[in-house]
């Protein structure tokens, strides 16, 4: 797991109070008991701050698993890094 994923999983685990051993890429977000909208918005805002990215509302449509959320952050963080490097 790379540094970005480690941070994403750490933020999800801390915010939604999920033990690290229960978090995996195939875990459905809806299956997490604390994953109501205000908690997920908290996750999103923390991730945005951590990686200096913006996650568009529409990009969260259809995200079913923790792994899919991680992949979205990976893409946006990579785009941000590329933009900074230019």
């Amino acid at each position: 797991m790379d540094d970005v994923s480690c941070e994403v999983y750490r933020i999800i685990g801390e915010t939604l109070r999920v033990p690290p051993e229960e978090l995996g890429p195939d875990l459905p977000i809806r299956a997490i008991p604390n994953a109501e909208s205000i908690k997920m918005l908290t996750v999103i805002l923390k991730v945005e701050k951590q990686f200096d990215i913006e996650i568009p509302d529409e990009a969260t449509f259809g995200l079913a698993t923790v792994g899919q959320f991680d992949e979205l952050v990976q893409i946006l963080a990579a785009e941000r890094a590329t933009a900074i490097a230019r």
Partner: protein
Amino acid sequence: MLIRHGVDIEAVSEVRRLLDLSARAKRRVFTAREVEDCERAGDSDRHFAGRFCTKEALFKALGRGWQGMGWTEAEVRADPDGAPRLITTGRVKAMIEALGVRSVALSISHTGDLAMASVVLLCAPDRNGRARAASRRR
């Protein structure tokens, strides 16, 4: 007419913590007008929380969760007499139109550290008398 209903309740303090997370948090969830209205009113935390509940209640009434919904595409404005009303734009407005919504009723309430909102949508049925489906976006 068919009725769709959504309700939400939140702790005012939790919404406050959400908005304190980053400089961008407020404009991530609320329109510029909502931020201005809430900050001008006394006890802005309660007003932010009530508006948050309204957006969430609307998303539930639309049959959707938080995912993919434009938080700033649903705006709460106060009438001159203080009654709240919903203004929608963009994709949220398109969903409301697709569902045949003819009227929106909104009620917001607070007590202690709690805020809640109830949103009722009166929808015209399709020509077969059935509820219309919200269009999928993307």
